């Protein structure tokens, strides 16, 4: 079963390519301390806006910092924080969603009411406001995004649990006297997780977009941290004379978002096709 | 004979592409629909009944579909008409009653809007005249309070009511031919009967020729004047209704009759085996695999209808003229 799915994924070309792209970017980020040609935060004012050269393959920015190095270090900040947001979000929402779906009771009522209120806000507004109250900073943005998003995921997971709860194998496990936590671990979670993985992959692109957007506004990673949204913000004043400074981080963000979307679509085709 | 043939179908073929080759869905069927008479088309599901109906209305024009043959109505061949010409015939000359009345109506529109758009597509009538026409035909189909009904939405009506509405819409333009594709299959048995009686009465009134498609022999026996038995896209037997029920000739027809539930028999007789795949159909006897009466020469028999007597036609090797000669040939 699993092997078949892996094979199915293997045959899905856009899925494979986008996975490779993401892996390369992620690796470049992780290995940046070894691979990067220059120090990403080293300011050399007499070398501002240098054209691409062997020393600075992508040139330098308005403070004479190496663009390629900043892009590489930025990968880990942009992608890493997106992954962190998703990890926090999913951990909370699996725990609460499963509890609420399986046990019901006050957790369930509370979750549903919170969901109603959460849905009444445009996501970006709530994130912006929470981040605004906490003050600028990458950590605060991560907290704000997780705080806004978990409710949505928890509600979806709750729905999945509710439908799984009525399946015959869960009912028979119950009749056989299997304790609730074991049913959840053995029968419910394994069935939920593939779908959650698909959801997460599709939405990771969105998270990357939002994080870089908020950083672009100045609310996320603070200078001189290399982050793609922040790099765009730095470059905006020099749009007329040095448009390439805009092109590099923008292309990176778009590449990552497209890759996550394609990978998510591929995963969904592979995982959800058979289960209909 | 003073009976006028209103729709004359000759050698209709419909084939469609599939992943593994060409599927012959309809393989050369011929039939005549006569004014004021009902031709019953009977057969198991998947034998090509619905595709036959749709191709007569020019509604099978999908990519790769090949339709051949002649279907003449008032001297025009339906199968070669351009899109606008066939549109003018649909609903006006040939009307249809569909299988699932509940899903056939646009949920966002009132019954009146359905009526008016149909009438308006073919006649130049004012809204008021259209409304009157609609009301009159709704009354004919036995629906009370037509003016109230016209303002209602499809989801507010029951299955039986909406099927009557469909009949009213179909007959309002006094078509030459009415195709009734499983008109009562999705309805309760009690409602079924009422609807069929209504249809029989209206047939007399409008003098429409009806092509009644059903897999239900009971419905066919009750309604039809003549019956054509369809199997795997071929008509295997055609006869007046009483003749067919009393003296079926084709082994498939016999098996079909035997599978009808009877009071005195405890068990249902099923037809053994499965219908063959219509992929790359070669024109041989489609019932060969399941037939209890097959003989050596059946395997190279080509499916065609031969006249058994005055009004009875059958497509089986046993009755084929050429093949009959084969029987007597010494081995």
């Amino acid at each position, binding site marked *: 079963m699993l092997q078949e799915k892996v094979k199915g994924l293997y045959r899905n070309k856009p899925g494979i390519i986008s996975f490779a792209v993401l892996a390369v970017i992620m690796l470049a980020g992780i290995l940046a301390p070894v691979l990067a040609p220059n120090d990403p935060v080293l300011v050399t004012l007499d070398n501002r806006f240098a054209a691409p050269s062997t020393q600075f393959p992508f040139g330098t920015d308005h403070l004479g910092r190496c663009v390629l190095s900043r892009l590489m270090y930025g990968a880990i900040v942009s992608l890493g924080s997106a992954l962190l947001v998703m990890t926090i979000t999913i951990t909370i929402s699996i725990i609460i969603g499963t509890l609420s779906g399986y046990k019901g009771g006050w957790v369930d009522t509370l979750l549903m009411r919170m969901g109603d209120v959460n849905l009444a806000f445009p996501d970006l507004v709530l994130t912006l406001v929470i981040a605004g*109250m906490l003050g600028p900073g990458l950590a605060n943005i991560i907290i704000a995004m997780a705080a806004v998003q978990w409710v949505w995921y928890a509600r979806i997971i709750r729905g999945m649990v509710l439908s799984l709860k009525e399946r015959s194998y869960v009912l028979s496990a119950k009749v056989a006297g299997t304790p609730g936590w074991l049913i959840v671990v053995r029968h419910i979670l394994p069935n939920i997780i593939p779908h959650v993985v698909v959801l997460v992959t599709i939405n990771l692109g969105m998270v990357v977009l939002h994080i870089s957007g908020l950083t672009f506004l100045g609310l996320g990673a603070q200078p001189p941290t290399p982050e793609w949204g922040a790099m765009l913000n730095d470059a905006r004043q020099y749009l007329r004379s040095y448009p390439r400074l*805009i092109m590099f981080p923008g292309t990176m963000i778009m590449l990552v978002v497209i890759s996550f979307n394609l990978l998510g679509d591929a995963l969904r085709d592979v995982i959800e096709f058979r289960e209909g | 004979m003073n009976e006028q043939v209103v729709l004359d179908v000759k050698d209709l073929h419909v084939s469609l592409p599939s992943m593994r080759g060409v599927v012959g869905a309809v393989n050369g069927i011929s039939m005549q629909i006569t004014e004021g008479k009902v031709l019953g088309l009977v057969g198991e599901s998947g034998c090509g009944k619905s595709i036959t109906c749709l191709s007569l209305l020019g509604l099978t024009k999908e990519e790769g579909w090949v339709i051949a043959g002649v279907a003449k109505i008032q001297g025009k061949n339906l199968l070669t008409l351009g899109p606008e010409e066939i549109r003018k015939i649909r609903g006006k000359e040939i009307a249809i009653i569909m299988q699932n009345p509940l899903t056939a109506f646009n949920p966002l529109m009132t019954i009146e809007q359905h009526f008016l758009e149909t009438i308006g597509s073919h006649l130049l009538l004012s809204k008021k005249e259209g409304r009157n026409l609609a009301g009159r035909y709704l009354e004919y189909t036995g629906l009370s309070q037509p003016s109230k009904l016209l303002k209602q939405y499809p989801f507010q009506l029951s299955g039986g009511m909406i099927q009557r509405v469909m009949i009213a819409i179909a007959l309002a333009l006094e078509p030459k031919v009415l195709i009734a594709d499983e008109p009562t299959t999705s309805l309760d048995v009690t409602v079924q009967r009422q609807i069929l009686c209504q249809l029989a009465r209206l047939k007399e009134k409008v003098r429409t020729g009806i092509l009644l498609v059903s897999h239900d022999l009971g419905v066919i026996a009750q309604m039809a004047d003549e019956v054509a038995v369809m199997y795997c896209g071929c008509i295997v037997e055609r006869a007046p209704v009483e003749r067919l029920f009393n003296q079926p000739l084709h082994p498939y027809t016999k098996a079909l009759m035997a599978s009808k539930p009877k009071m005195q028999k405890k068990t249902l007789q099923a037809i053994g085996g499965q219908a063959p795949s219509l992929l790359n159909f070669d024109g041989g006897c489609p019932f060969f695999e399941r037939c209890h009466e097959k003989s050596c020469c059946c395997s190279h028999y080509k499916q065609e209808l031969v006249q058994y007597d005055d009004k009875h036609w059958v497509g089986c090797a046993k009755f084929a003229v050429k093949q009959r000669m084969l029987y007597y040939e010494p081995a």
Partner: protein
Amino acid sequence: MGRFVARRIISLVPVLLGISLLTFVLIHLVPVDPAEVYLRLSQIPPTDEAVAVIRAEMGLNKPLHQQYFDWLWKVVHLDFGKSFVTKKPVMAELLYYFPATLNLAAASLLIVLLISIPVGVFSALYKDTAFDQICRILAFIGASMPSFWLSFVLIYILSLELNLLPAFGRGTLAHLVLPATTLALGAAAVYTRLLRTSMLENLNQNFVLYARARGLKEKLIVVRHVLKNALIPVVIAFGMTLGHMLAGSVIVENVFAWPGVGRYIVSSIFNRDYPVIQAYALFMAVVFVLLNLFADIICATLDPRIRLGGDK
């Protein structure tokens, strides 16, 4: 219809209460003492005494529930307090900036409609043709494009290189083109896809076949039977999108120096102007909820099943 609207409005009451509760709690996320921030912004040294005075003035010493009810009472009377920075009523400030944002969002909405309806309809009708394929690829890219980056690309090409349109500020209609387009493209991509799928679903419906069988003209079938049904999920999503556009304009307004709520809120965040942030959240949520209500009402006028469902 009246009953539907009434039911829908009554169902908003608990949601609005939830919104108010959440917004009230927000101010307690602030890691520092708002009173101190207030004093600093007012150029007053935050001595213990001064802080104590301000805290009392803001009602921060009262029990939490008391604070909530006091605050709610004021909010119901549209009093959101005063900005720490300008010392003007927040509500007046928001209403001052809001028209520009609304203007921008409405223009984008128009662009979204102008793109997504024709493109969605035609790519469904001409499914799998070159036109459809190109539109699908563009829609996919459009949905993945960061709006702030897209805006720079547009500014660079149309404004700096070709000198066709003004890049910054608000004033003439020409000023509106770039920000509205930037804001619109992402949503247009989403809607084109949604409408295409929805059209294809409805094209396969039995009622379309029946409409053809009744001899209706193809144009009439597409418009009245397919498009009208296909628009329902799109309209429902539209209420959401307009809200997201009002929110998403934060970035676009900052790029294009558009004097709307979005720019105001970002500068307020940097100024730690907490009453403004709080009011902004409440204001946007209420606008969002009302837009969704509006979308539901439009749907009900389109779809008798929603309108009459309960009365059957």
